[in-house]
């Protein structure tokens, strides 16, 4: 029920969207980052006084840190794939008409959504065995694999909520129209509801991926050698010079920014593209 008025007390709420960073678009980010890194190297390269300058040291370690960062991305993609697969099933369970199934799925979703990511990661790290014995075949569980499992738990719960929210957000007329055309519940869901939901689920799903990517550094706390662990090791290998801390951690921040910012812009663009105009 909406009233048309020239002087509304409040406007309808709009979803907030991030404004671009100095009007930068996706395509600008990589050239600027390259320019920054090369420019900074040139600027700092000249002030050598026996000890290597800060930028030189950073450049020495940059390939290793980049390798660590790629490992982070591998963890994030695997955890996302695993979490999405299980989360989609859980989300469908939440909208099931079977009472115990939907209540159970709801509880699992809420439980893993309410628990902090770091605690879930600890949970997976310490409580999973380091290898399982399957019919005499020893399958090892390396710590990065446990990290993927630990990170996919909260992803699973969030994907489940995204699926449920998307199905709920469709107008009920869709269900009723399908019913009047004699579609069964399963047919309605697969042929009518879910195809429409994919569009609605994509932006929040990408947001979740961005959050997950940023959460992969948590694996450093539990000892997986990803970019943060490598940074710490590189810093101690350089003798713990305090003036190196800022460039190294800044470099890691920059890496994540270069990766996540385009994703955020792309999500905003998708949201605009898929926006439902009432």
């Amino acid at each position, binding site marked *: 029920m909406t009233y048309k008025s020239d002087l509304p*007390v409040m406007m309808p709420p709009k979803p907030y969207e991030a404004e671009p960073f100095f009007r930068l678009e996706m395509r600008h980010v990589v050239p600027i980052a390259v320019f920054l890194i090369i420019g900074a190297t040139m600027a700092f390269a000249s002030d050598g006084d026996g000890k290597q300058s800060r930028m030189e040291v950073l450049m020495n370690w940059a390939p290793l840190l980049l390798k660590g960062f790629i490992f982070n991305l591998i963890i994030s993609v695997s955890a996302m794939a695993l979490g999405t697969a299980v989360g989609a099933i859980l989300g469908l369970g939440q909208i099931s008409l079977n009472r115990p199934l939907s209540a159970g799925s709801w509880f699992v979703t809420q439980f893993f959504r*309410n628990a902090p990511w770091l605690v*879930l990661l600890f*949970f997976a790290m310490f409580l999973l065995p380091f290898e399982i014995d399957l019919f005499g075949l020893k399958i090892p569980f390396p710590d990065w694999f446990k990290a993927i499992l630990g990170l996919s738990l909260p992803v699973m719960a969030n994907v489940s909520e995204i699926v449920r929210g998307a199905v709920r957000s469709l107008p009920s007329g869709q269900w009723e129209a399908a019913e009047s055309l004699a579609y069964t519940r399963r047919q309605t869901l697969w042929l009518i509801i879910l195809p429409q939901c994919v569009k609605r689920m994509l932006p929040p799903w990408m947001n979740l991926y961005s959050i997950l990517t940023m959460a992969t*550094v948590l694996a450093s706390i539990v000892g997986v050698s990803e970019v943060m662990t490598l940074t710490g090791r590189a810093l101690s290998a350089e003798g713990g010079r305090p003036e190196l801390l*800022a460039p190294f*951690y800044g470099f890691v921040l920059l890496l*994540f920014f270069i990766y996540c910012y385009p994703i955020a812009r792309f999500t905003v663009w998708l949201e605009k593209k898929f926006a439902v105009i009432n």
Partner: protein
Amino acid sequence: MEFFFEWFRVLYEETGINLPFLYDSYDRNRMFNGFLTTIWLSLVCLFFSIVIGIVGAWLQGSSFKWSRRIVNGYIQLFRNTPPLVQLYFFYFAIGTLLPRVENDWGGQSPMLGSFAWAAISLSFFAGAFNVEIFRSGIEAVPKSTVEAAEALGFSKLQIYKDITLPLAFRVVLPALNNNLVNLVKTTTLAYAIAVPEMLYEANQIWSDNVNVTEMMVFLLLAYFALVGVLVGGMNRWERSMKIPGYG
């Protein structure tokens, strides 16, 4: 009460389920203090992140191009980088640049401790989200309302404080609560710089007693309960603050 605690000692002796934070008074104090630290850290960050949100939203609406640009840059930087790296950057990189002060024992110690840095870093992180949230609420207040207030002789600050913000607040409450819940969950990151919050104390206890399973399960349940109570309370508040017939 003592009987209740003793029961858990018996439970340990009988079944091997070791919950020292219940029957051992030292561990009990540690766990309780950890719980209080988590709550206190959440409250401090909540306060400062809302202040950052309100001020940031005001600056974003200002007519100076550069204040808008700086706020946008801040938002994008803090939203698109991992909070843990931000925390490390603040604690290790900026923390070592600050001058050292003399502590009570005559030694040298950093000017700001780990708790202070955790509070600063997490406030900035949550604040970046709050700016956007508040801005969306402020945009929902129609221009005609602001113009009416101007016609009544309100100053710019008064309009923001007395007209726009109270109206916007009701619109943004759901998003704000969401962010608050995230903030409480993010306080676990302070573990990484040894702030004695719940996760850190639990870690200490399981290192002493080798009861990882019990502590982990307890920790999950504790956070589930803490966040559950928070979400429940916030939902009630949202319902009572709802503008009738809106949204």
